[in-house]
């Protein structure tokens, strides 16, 4: 994929300027909404009549068993899979599904943070923040000084890495699992993603590292953005989500507000759903 003109324009301007996406944001209720979305893989009915919406400053937890359709749902939103039928709205405007793609999703400020695949291990953090959307002159040479300045700002202010012995020149291989998630999330926030999709960011992390990641998720909320947070661990998602969507065998079976249920009640509730069906 080439450097997208929209993203380029965004970087050329200073740090947190108004973007086309943000200018529009004044007038929408939901960052993304799905209406009657169905997805078949051959004979397999992977998504059944999905109706859901994510508010513009809402953290939505997506929970469900293995094979419930969580990833399929996410990949449909991010343009990886095309739905068999149904409609998708981004910022209340309907998307032309035939022309929808991962690149289009990026242009619409939807970004996915994958677990292991988003950082270059041996590269310094400042390169990791900007790779794919570098600040360059017209011959393609990078403005290293400016990139480092902005990266330092993201590190200190957006992510909140202070006094932990990490600088923009540190390489990713020196970071812990939680810190890496922080860098990926910080990058998404800097590039004004209005919707950040987190795909099991706490999998395989220790307790301390999980705490860090949950802090990063809260920062997404504080900065006025939205997030869809896929998680296996109910306690983690219960702690940060505004709303939980429960998926079972391709269908939305419940929407729960964490304030209405404790983690224990939630666990019991989910087990009951399994048994009833």
């Amino acid at each position, binding site marked *: *994929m*080439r*450097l*997208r003109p929209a993203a380029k324009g965004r970087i050329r301007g200073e740090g947190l300027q108004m973007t086309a996406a943000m200018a529009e944001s004044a007038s929408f209720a939901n960052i993304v909404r799905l209406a009657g979305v169905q997805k078949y893989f051959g004979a397999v009915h992977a998504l059944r009549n999905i109706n859901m919406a994510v508010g513009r400053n809402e953290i939505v937890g997506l929970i469900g068993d293995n094979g419930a359709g969580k990833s399929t749902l996410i990949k449909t939103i991010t343009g990886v899979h095309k739905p068999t039928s149904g409609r998708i709205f981004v910022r209340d405007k309907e998307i032309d599904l035939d022309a929808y793609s991962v690149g289009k999703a*990026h242009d619409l400020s939807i970004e996915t943070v*994958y677990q292991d*695949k*988003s*950082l*270059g*291990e*041996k*590269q310094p953090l400042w*390169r990791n923040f900007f*790779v*794919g*959307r*570098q600040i*360059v002159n017209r*011959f*393609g*040479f*990078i403005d*290293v000084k400016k990139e480092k300045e902005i990266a330092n700002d993201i590190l200190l202010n957006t992510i909140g*890495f202070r006094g*932990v*012995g*990490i*600088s923009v*020149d*540190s*390489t990713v*291989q*020196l*970071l*812990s699992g939680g*810190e890496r998630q922080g860098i990926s999330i910080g990058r998404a926030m800097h590039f004004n993603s209005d919707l950040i999709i987190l795909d099991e960011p706490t999998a395989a992390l220790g307790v*301390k590292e999980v*705490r*860090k990641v949950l*802090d990063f998720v*809260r920062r997404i909320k504080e900065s006025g953005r939205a997030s869809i947070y896929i998680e296996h661990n109910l306690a983690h998602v219960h702690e940060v989500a505004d709303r939980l969507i429960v998926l079972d065998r391709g269908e939305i079976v419940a929407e729960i507000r964490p304030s209405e249920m404790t983690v224990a009640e939630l666990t019991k509730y989910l087990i009951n759903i399994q048994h009833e069906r």
Partner: protein
Amino acid sequence: MKTAARSRFARIEGLPIIVVSVLIIGLFMITAPSVFLRPEIYTSTMLSTAPPLILLATGLTFVIAAGEIDLSFPSIIGFSGCAFAILFKLHGLGWIAILAALAAGVLIGFINGVLVAKVGIPSFIATLGTGFFWNGMATFWSGGKSYALRGVEDTSVYQILVGNLPIGDPATYVWYSQISVQAVWMAAIVVFLWFVLNRHRFGEHILFIGDSNDVSRVVGVDVDWEKIKLFTMMGLLAAIAAIMLTLENRNYFGNQGQGYLLTAIAAVLIGGTSIFGGKATIVGTVFGAVLIYLMEPGLVAAGATAETVQIMRGLVFLIAVIFYLFMDEPARRRALLARFMIRTSSGPAKPAGERPAQPTRGS
């Protein structure tokens, strides 16, 4: 202050190889003072015959940084040199012969790139195949003959590309009158490529590709196209080396590139570029090339035989690769040192496990 100065010193690009080069040249000055304490070995010998090696090694630095390899460049030297020699000598095409040789290198490199990126053949295999193919084509075209370029010294092609700099009177053979133009061309290209690797979008993409193809795709790098550009650039550099070699020798012969396969790869790895990709240093490569180049005159002047030179080159190469392996991979280094019960404290930025935990908010 002391530690700041020390860390700035440690951050000099290619520091280990610079130190080793200086030490070894110092050693040669002691063992063979009549050769190494005189300027001629550096100015007239090295500056006129080392540029092809340095150019090839610089190109390979990019290739290895991307986690790929090019084994076909000696054959590109053969084929491009053949194209140049035949068009120049038999058809009297002058500068057009230069352009044709460069175009041949670009085309062969482009084909390599397409085979690797689009067809999906691992570069080791793809360039092994194209290497055989173009070597055969060069022999076929030249009829297996060599071409002596008599009188080439009087052409503008020769004077502009490989003649001597107009300093002093060449007839006196004073050292400063024997500095070759190709050293200037080489230096300009290497400096430009340093900026491309360290300051250009292309160089950054190459480093990320070497790190991981998957990560590069996720962050929006067009991996296939960057690899095609990479191999095309290597083809162009091999063609430039071919022209320099053919003009400097005033002679084309079919296997003129063959001696460069291992020396160029060795120069890159001795210099400190990672064999796993993702990390590269052009300063290191240049010093690596100088070291590999000077080992032959150094050892021969000290009374060693040709096979000793081979043995020493192989040994230095292996030691360097092992050294960088343990430098680059802290986990391996710690495992090795632990085996010898040595405790270490690493540099300013420590791995996550060794740093104090980051304060967390809320709960």
